[in-house]
């Protein structure tokens, strides 16, 4: 059909460029995954299939603790961020514009606008003072920092879901003798649930992926998986890093697929 006749939406060379872009996007990732199964020590020469680097990563205590720390931080940070974001979304959508609403929007979206390195530096300075003042050196700083920058990511899908929700449902609930709390518990929350789940997943992924802020906020011995990997890249790289990356990649893709399925349902 493309050969015969004139297709108005066709532009010269666009199709090959686009397909080239998709290839270029996936080829490096694909290579990375393939070499994670390399039997040799090299990330360039293929020596046959093996799972040894996964085993080696699994038996590496530094990797294990960093992974557990990453998951721990991501779990708490996404829980806190999702709770705060859900409340904020309920407070800022579907009501008459109120005084200070713009301020709240700007605050919530602030982590998306400020360069990460600037926030990282700011937190470094701020938490350094608090560490001196309180003597507390724990993971609380990382959780707090992660929770803050995860808020906009959790907020957006929840808000989208709320805005797509039929306002008259809550009116109907109030009409049918539900108190404001009952309306929330039996109508708003169940309908909102997929949005909240989607927001929590995004927050989790974002927390899990963070390098810059973590690198600046962490105290000694608080490496997360990404900062551990960043440290490794300074040295000679073995396919162990590929194996870790692949595992993380798979986790991200799984969570994102869930996210898309959850948000897609709304549109149908």
């Amino acid at each position: 059909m493309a050969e015969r006749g004139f297709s108005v939406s066709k532009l010269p060379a666009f199709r090959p460029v686009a397909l080239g872009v998709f290839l270029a996007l996936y080829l490096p990732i694909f290579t990375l995954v393939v070499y994670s199964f390399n039997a040799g020590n090299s990330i360039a020469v293929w020596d046959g299939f093996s799972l040894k680097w996964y085993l080696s990563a699994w038996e590496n205590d530094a990797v294990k603790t960093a992974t557990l720390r990453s998951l721990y931080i991501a779990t708490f940070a996404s829980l806190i961020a999702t709770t705060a974001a859900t409340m904020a979304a309920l407070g800022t959508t579907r009501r008459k514009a109120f005084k200070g609403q713009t301020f709240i929007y700007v605050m919530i979206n602030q982590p998306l606008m400020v360069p990460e390195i600037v926030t990282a530096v700011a937190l470094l300075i701020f938490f350094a003072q608090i560490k001196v003042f309180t003597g507390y050196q724990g993971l609380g700083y990382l959780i707090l920092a992660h929770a803050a920058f995860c808020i906009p990511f959790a907020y957006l899908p929840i808000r989208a879901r709320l805005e797509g929700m039929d306002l008259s449902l809550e009116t109907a609930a109030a009409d049918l003798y539900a108190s404001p709390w009952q309306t929330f518990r039996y109508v708003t929350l169940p309908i909102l649930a997929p949005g909240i789940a989607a927001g929590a997943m995004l927050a989790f992924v974002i927390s899990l992926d963070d390098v810059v802020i973590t690198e600046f906020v962490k105290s000694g011995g608080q490496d997360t998986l990404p900062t551990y990997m960043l440290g490794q890249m300074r040295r000679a790289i073995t396919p162990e890093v590929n194996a870790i990356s692949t595992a993380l990649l798979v986790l991200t893709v799984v969570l994102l697929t869930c996210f898309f399925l959850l948000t897609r349902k709304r549109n149908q």
Partner: protein
Amino acid sequence: MSRAEDAMTRTATRNGWLLSTPALILLTLAAAGPLLIVLVYSFLEKGQYGNVEWAFSWDGWVGILFTRDIFDGTLGLADAHLTIFWRSVKLSLMTTAITFALGFPTAWFIATRPAAERGMWLFLITIPFWTNLLIRTFAINEVLRSEGLLNTVLISLGLIDAPLQIMYTDRAVLIGMAYVYLPLMVLPLYAAIERFDMRLLEAAYDLYASRMQVLRHVILPIVKPGIVAGSILVFVPSLGAYVTPRVLGGGKNMMIGNFIELQFGQGRNWPLGAALSMTLLVVVMVALLFYVRAANRGSNTNG
């Protein structure tokens, strides 16, 4: 307003604020608030071993452009700093140009797929976007390094004899950033093109326009808000990039982000680091203002 009416409005306002409070506290504590401290630090004297002395000083701000001679204390232009700024801006602009050149055909391609297919293609763009930045940078690293995929392929094809040294050059940083930020260009472009009324093309061809004329005089002007949005979405994180130049540029080819880090590490000049952070923040905010204006204009003309 009646009492009942008044009460309804008041409750709405109060609930809006009350419900937003936890988020606001978190963001004030761990995002927006500390920025003010950075501002304060930029006006303090640097401490001997990092940190600051609590005394007012312009040194941090002056240090952005000038260095003080170690021996006689006179001020001179800091060439090294200017080089870093120039590299940051140059690489960010080039990244924007490359992502546009590649991203526009890609976005157009997706937008002209059958509706049922589009979601799949978009998903393919979004997956790398959400994938860990570090992993993507690392993946590019594997392609570019001396024994990497690119060199292996080129040598085995006989195109080159010795591996190209791409790693730890500006070119590597540029390729890396283009790779990493491409989805940020494609997504807003797609949004703009998807709303584009394809019947306008029929009208243009009917009125004797050639393909290039259609692109130049019909398509580009109409999707311009999307182009502006995509360009800024790429330019802003490029300018503040930290991980990509660190991994692909090595220690030497710093960008502003790495330069700021340096001040808080080996440089031991926190006030300068703070002043640099504030400068970066202001530049980014100005760029974002343009973005908001472009986005608004886009929704006015097309929505």
